[in-house]
């Protein structure tokens, strides 16, 4: 009962926070500097880990596809498998998971410490709503940066697959036929589909992490607990939303 209550409370405060942040959307142009700073943190600094991870996801996909498709002589379809799974599912999903781990945890830690050390209260008494200057720029930044991260993830992942397809002898198909299959079966629609997913995931991750950070109560010890809770909640929500968003976009 207590847990159910906590979940409902979390969901409710998240919606409230979203509405509050949304109501200040008009102030975004004046918060340009904060927006750019968040873009930098969410997009630019996350790129290296996203590219490394995507590259290896691509290689593993190609390797596994090569292994399993060899059985019925369909190795030419490795390209299409890597292309589609990267664009539609793994690119958006893994990037969002990284976002939760890298950016989400930082957001929660920052906001939780601001809350614990009364900085959030100070903002409130100064009549500067935390939703406006702490949440809105982050939500806007993630919406702008997510597609960029995804396109990097996709292209690096596809490239990783082609490297395995070409140079691993047990797979051994040419880059040309890999990319031909990829191009033939992967439509731009699929890439857009993945980006739409990533937008939803990224937005929810940032919203959840902001909300948990701002609702932290107690001493500095609570900051760590809040970060853990935020990352776990983000991951669970990504996976649950994944099903529904995929279904919706079909």
């Amino acid at each position: 009962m207590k847990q159910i209550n906590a979940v409902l409370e979390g969901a409710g405060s998240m919606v409230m926070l979203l509405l509050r942040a949304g109501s200040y959307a008009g102030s975004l142009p004046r918060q340009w500097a904060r927006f750019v700073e968040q873009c930098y943190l969410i997009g630019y600094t996350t790129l290296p880990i996203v590219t490394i991870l995507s590259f290896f996801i691509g290689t593993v996909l190609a390797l596994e596809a090569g292994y399993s498709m060899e059985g019925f002589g369909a190795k030419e379809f490795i390209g299409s498998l890597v292309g589609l799974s990267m664009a539609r599912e793994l690119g958006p999903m893994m990037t969002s998971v990284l976002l939760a781990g890298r950016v989400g945890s930082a957001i929660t830690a920052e906001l939780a410490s601001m809350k614990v050390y009364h900085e959030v209260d100070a903002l409130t008494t100064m009549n500067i709503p935390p939703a406006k200057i702490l949440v809105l720029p982050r939500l806007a930044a993630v919406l702008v940066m997510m597609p960029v991260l995804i396109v990097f993830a996709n292209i690096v992942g596809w490239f990783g697959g082609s490297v395995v397809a070409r140079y691993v002898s047990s797979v051994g198909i040419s880059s040309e036929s890999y990319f031909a299959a990829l191009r033939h079966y992967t439509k731009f629609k699929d890439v857009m589909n993945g980006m739409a997913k990533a937008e939803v995931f990224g937005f929810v991750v940032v919203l959840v992490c902001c909300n948990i950070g701002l609702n932290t109560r107690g001493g500095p010890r609570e900051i760590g607990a809040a970060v853990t809770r935020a990352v776990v909640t983000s991951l669970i929500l990504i996976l649950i939303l994944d099903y529904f968003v995929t279904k919706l976009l079909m």
Partner: protein
Amino acid sequence: MNSTQQTARVGLFFLLGIALVWVTFETLSDGKIFEPRSHTLIAGFDDLRQLKTGDEVRLAGVRVGSVQKTRLAGRHAEAVLEIDPKVPIAGDATATIAMSGLIGGNYVAIDMGTPGAPALADGAEIKTLTTPDLNTLMSDIGGLGKQLQESLGTFSAAINGDPKTGGGIIQKLEKILADNTARLNATMTNLQEITDKINRGDGTLGKLVNDPKLHDELLATVDEIKATATQAKEFVANAQSVMDQVKSGQGALGTLVYDPKAAADIKASIADLRSVSDKLAKGEGTLGKLINDDGLYDSAQVTIKKVDRTLDGLNDSGPITAVGIVANALF
């Protein structure tokens, strides 16, 4: 780091991202947004089978478009084909549904048509041809064996005849020989005398026998008989190789294709055919002997012509060609 540098990095990163989105779009969609609305053609078929939206349209094997949608139009199905407007499709070109591989689905194949034919306009209907699909072919193979056996049976009956009535061509020839030995001997004697006369170079008959036109005619007849025998042999060899190919299929498809009953039927027919041709090969000597008997020669000629026609008929029969296509497509 100062904020100008930070802004510059974010800007660079963002622009790079947009550029990559554009590159992806161009690569995957061939930049369709800026292409003029492509040409559509309507292809009506009795049955679209596995054809679905997005399948390729190939002109002489080169991809020129895709299936935009499939729909029902009255009593038949229609596929709306989206064709690259730069590629003209001849007015008399024919569209067929073809298989691009066993699990690769179907595509619409369009042939070039005749060179001078005017191009089809946007939205026009293209001529279509229904080709048998794999499933139909598989079910036809059993019936095909039976058909083949029947036609070959008729052929062998014409030559061997029914053993009870003894009415076969070979039997008749032997009977004629046996019945007329005396007369033949007399004729041979007469012939000897005549040839003597010819050798001696006198009499009109000598000239008649030596007439080049008649000689040529005789040679042509012999050649025709030889050609017929070769044709029969070739057919047998073809049939054999088709069956070998079908039999050698080992995988899931091999079992699907391989129908032991049909194969046995076809084999039996081939054996019949071979014995006929063997007999034909042996019969050559007898026919040589009987070269002076005009009546016999004529009747033999007629029979051979009948054999010829039967063989032609067999060669032309569609199903065999279809089997060949299937066998070649599969293996």
